[in-house]
């Protein structure tokens, strides 16, 4: 029982991290069909800005929090204005050239990592846990209070984003852009502004995610890369283009990894977790290519 619970808690810890990454990735995809490989760098900048402001600033915590989000929003706006918008504004009715944007976001990812190295060096940095770092025990299994923070904020973000996309005019406009840009434009939706808003939202989510996970994982200039890869896997597994799918997919990847890591495969059990999550992903996609909750949006990527 204890081991089962510990596996569950371990899976929830990593899964909630992947969910946050997947959420940010999905929001941009929903509005612009851009696969933003630099999403992990939003986390990195958020986490390390938070670290810097905590270290050097006398500001109260809420102000530091908002300032960190503000920095990443600025980066995401610049990213959109300099790199994405020039292509979008040429002809808003044209479909997004996926490969071109993929390569562009990869390049931006490297540039942001380089900037992170220059500003913060190569060593990882940590920040204090939001509440205590003393683990909580349930039936012998432990979970950190910081994990509960991550899970709680993920749930709040899920509810807010779900409400935004389902009930708000702006959210519906964003979904319309992702389904058919030409028609959305003809209906008077400002596609460029919608894409900009998506980047701002995604940047905010990335910043929040970075601040939440840094107490557990520490953060370094290249810390966003692997998390982004797992986040993409989670987003695809859950259904690219759905907010609930992003969260579900991220949690699923974390849980699968935790379960596989303790299978008695000798000392290589931990190594198998990396491979098995991918194998299971391939299996699910073979049966349901749009992902667990995916709809039409997922098919475009095929």
């Amino acid at each position, binding site marked *: 029982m204890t081991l089962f619970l510990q596996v569950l808690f371990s899976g929830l*810890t*990593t899964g909630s991290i992947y969910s946050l990454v997947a959420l940010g990735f999905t929001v941009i995809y929903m509005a612009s069909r851009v696969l933003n490989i630099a999403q992990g760098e939003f986390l990195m900048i958020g986490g390390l800005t938070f670290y810097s402001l905590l270290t050097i600033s006398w500001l109260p915590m809420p102000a530091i929090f908002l300032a960190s989000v503000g920095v990443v929003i600025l980066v995401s706006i610049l990213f959109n204005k300099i790199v994405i918008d020039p292509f979008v504004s040429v002809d808003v009715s044209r479909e997004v050239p996926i490969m071109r944007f993929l390569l562009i976001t990869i390049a931006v990812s490297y540039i942001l990592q380089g900037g992170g190295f220059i500003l913060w060096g*190569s060593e990882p*940095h940590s920040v204090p846990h939001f509440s205590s770092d003393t683990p909580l025990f349930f039936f012998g299994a432990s979970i950190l209070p910081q994990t509960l923070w991550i899970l709680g904020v993920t749930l709040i973000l899920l509810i807010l984003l779900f409400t935004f996309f389902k009930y708000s005019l702006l959210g519906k406009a964003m979904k319309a852009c992702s389904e058919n840009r030409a028609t959305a434009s003809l209906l008077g939706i400002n596609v460029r502004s919608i894409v900009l808003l998506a980047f701002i939202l995604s940047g905010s989510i990335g910043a929040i995610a970075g601040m939440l996970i840094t107490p557990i994982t520490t953060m370094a200039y290249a810390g966003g890369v692997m998390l982004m890869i797992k986040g993409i896997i989670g987003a695809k597994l859950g259904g690219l283009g759905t907010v609930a799918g992003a969260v579900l997919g991220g949690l699923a990847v974390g849980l699968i990894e935790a379960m596989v890591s303790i299978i008695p495969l000798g000392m290589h059990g*931990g190594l198998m977790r990396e491979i098995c999550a991918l194998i299971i992903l391939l299996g699910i996609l073979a049966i349901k290519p749009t992902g667990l909750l995916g709809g039409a949006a997922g098919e475009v990527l095929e």
Partner: protein
Amino acid sequence: MKTTRKRLFWVMGVVVTITLVLSVFISAPVYAEAIKIGVLFSTTGPFAGFGKPGQRGALLALEQANAAGGIKGQPLEIIVYDAESNADQASRQTKKLIVRDKVTAIIGPESWRPAALMHALAIEHKVPIFTDLASPGTYPAEQVSWTFEIQGGADTNLLGTLYYFKSIGVKRLVFFGTADPLGEKLIKDINTEASKLGMTLVGVQLAPQTSTDVTAQMAVLKEKNPNALVVLGGGPFGNIAMNNAFQVGMNIPVNYIGANIIPAYLEGLGSGAAKNQRSAVHKAVAYYDLDETDPAKPTITAVANAYRAKYGEEINWASACAYDGGRMIVEALKAVGPDPQGIKKYCDNLKNWEAPGTGRHMTMLPEYHYIQHDIRDLIIVRWDVGEKRFRKVANVRDALK
């Protein structure tokens, strides 16, 4: 007019003659040809945390030699390049140092990974390189015949701590490490060495370096009822492993082996986990806690003070090892002159060489071509989260009694 011109020529002739005669007896100082030494550490990239202090330690040793008059009047010309934490780049820079700059020896880089392609160049061009070779046997001796270890391997950290564990009554060990060749080698080493000391390895788990949570695997290890844990892995991985071990309730001594023995890498280590962490390291890591009767204390303290005066920071594991490397080159040069073959022979025959920066006695193991330090010169330290520095817990020498 003719007389005046004639007189002028005579005067000029006398002046020139006197000048020539005097120049025979008053010679201008002759500048001795400099001995070129290459300093190649990673000051950018993921290894920069070790590379930058390593470069500083090496430079301190070489500049101190110059300040003391060089090598029998010959100054050292120090040529510095960045290995960029990358084996290909380190190899390119090595070729530049050897072929273009014609150095007599090279010190660096800080890790066996970026150094991987340098050994063949050292053999081809017969230029000695002073760097890290991981542990004895990582490379066959003939592949590293012109490379000299300056750091000491993970195996001595492990062995020193196993002796310490034995002295505190540990019987059951578990191991958690990175899924790579070093991890697999250490498992074999633990099995061999622990059994000699009456300890048993009862559980093993490996994980990728990119893991963010390993509590599930730690829970599996906890079920084996261990008295001690050995963790291998640097950077965030090492801290996450130690934190997760504490989190699942493994409140037992943890031998940490890896890169997190310089303060910059220990930011993420929790206070609970830090209390259990133990590493066997050289004395410079906690020189301020050395016994007053320790004969190495004055020398190491002097090096630490010189380092702090020059760079405004405390000496650490990486900078002290590199300092020793620099001093090894200087002493070899003093003994044999700027002769690469002579330097190689000097270092091949190193026996009980007293390293001034770390207090280690270093001896060449010819079967591995690896300069090993005596584990009796190591100390057991733990990380103090509040003070943000290492504190000595015990001497390995005492645990061997």
